[in-house]
């Protein structure tokens, strides 16, 4: 039995569509249920940011999650396969009228992805003040809480609508299939079998 953690929403739906394509049967959560058991698979519906945690602690053997979340969590997991979907960037946003200056002595950054931000600025030998926020990130530079934000950008529309521009890109992200390290030893043949079936679908243009 393989247990797979899926983030609620589109990624879970797309992943289950691929399972349906591979195994030629329905995989569907009943209304409001968080666990789906079907044959040799058990699926868990969890919050996006919690997927790596479930897999790291082996509450799930496998998980599907964005590379941005994986990088920010920084947990020791096996990155099995790039599922090529959910493309976005982790980018730095500033007010339209401000200029990016990494030489400024006191940089204040607002973000929910504090680890990605810390690593990025550390690589530039900059030690900014990082303020953790949980949402409405675009507000921070506008009201003077921070000089810049580090946030997910898909089309850039939200930033634009709030008077912000993208000034630098930290990383690009797509959805990944991940595995727990112990599961990879204990259930290697099942995991590699699923890996190759997923890879076939992705190579034929399937996306999650």
């Amino acid at each position, binding site marked *: 039995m393989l247990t797979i953690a899926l983030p609620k929403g589109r990624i879970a739906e797309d992943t289950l569509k691929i399972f349906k394509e591979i195994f030629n049967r329905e995989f569907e959560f009943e209304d409001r249920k968080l666990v789906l058991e079907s044959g040799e698979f058990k699926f868990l519906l969890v919050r996006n940011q919690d997927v790596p945690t479930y897999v790291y602690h082996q509450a799930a053997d496998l998980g599907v999650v964005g590379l941005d979340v994986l990088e920010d969590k920084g947990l020791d997991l096996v990155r099995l*396969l790039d599922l090529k979907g959910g493309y976005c960037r982790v980018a730095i946003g500033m007010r339209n009228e401000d200029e990016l200056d990494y030489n400024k002595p006191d940089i204040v950054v607002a973000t929910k992805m504090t680890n990605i931000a810390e690593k990025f600025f550390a690589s530039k030998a900059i030690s900014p003040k990082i303020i953790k926020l949980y949402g409405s990130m675009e507000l921070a530079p506008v009201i003077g809480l921070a000089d810049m934000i580090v946030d997910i950008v898909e089309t850039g529309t939200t930033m634009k609508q709030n008077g912000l521009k993208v000034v630098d890109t930290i990383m690009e992200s797509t959805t990944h299939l991940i595995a727990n390290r112990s599961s990879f030893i*204990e259930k*290697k*043949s099942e995991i*590699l079998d699923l890996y190759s079936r997923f890879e076939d679908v992705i190579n034929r243009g399937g996306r999650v």
Partner: protein
Amino acid sequence: MVLEHEIPEGSKVYFGEIAKRKRKIESIASELFYQHNFEEMVTPIFSYHQIDSIPHEKLIHLTDKDNYPMNLRADSTVDVSKLMLKRVGRTNDNSRWFYIQPVYRYPSIEQYQIGAESIGGGELKEMLQLNIEIFEAMEFQPILQISNVAIPRKIAEELNLSIDIFKNIEIKKILALQIDWLQELLYLEDVKDIDRVFDMSPQFIRDELEKIKELVESLNYKEVKIAPLYYTKMDYYNNLIFKFLRNNRVFARGGNYSVDGNSSVGFSIYTDEILNQES
């Protein structure tokens, strides 16, 4: 604010029944160590040599009276080996030592360990058998993983690859090389398939594969998984290694290693993990 009853995260308190079980596990192990002619060594809690085996960020750093850096013991193997080779060895020719003591890692992690080292030689097979004997005496049978870190090292060297491909289990990159024998090694987990893969494999890893086969066939253990491409992050292991695991817990780890150019063999049992598994 620190509450009156608070203890730091990662530190351990055992009392009553669970402390009794801990003592029993340690007693079973020490009895068997003595039966196999091991002697006990207790090493200092303060150490100058931890950085040789444990990453900087996992160590608890202190300084000595001359302001020279030292650490709290985060791993017993390096100090047991160095003490044996540089000090104890002058007056005691025993090379088989065991220890039962905790290690400490940043920021406040305590781990109780039971370990054995055969310094300057020894057979991995015998050490693994002893580890199994201890677990059998405890009626405990986790999955046994057998690997040989010389295999990924040699492959990385011969094919001019980064060892990180194996360290991080980057399957896509391994498969993208489109090398039949490498693909077979990735999938290999049952020793009965090793002969088939052996015949396909290049000369430079055949001896190392043979070592895995010989070791597994010498054991009478129910659940064995071989993982020839597995690469451990412990820097001192250099050849055959083993690991006991189940349900995301690693209960023991051992292997061939080299300290100051001396080949040795040893293992550590993680007592806390066994107690947590039982409770």
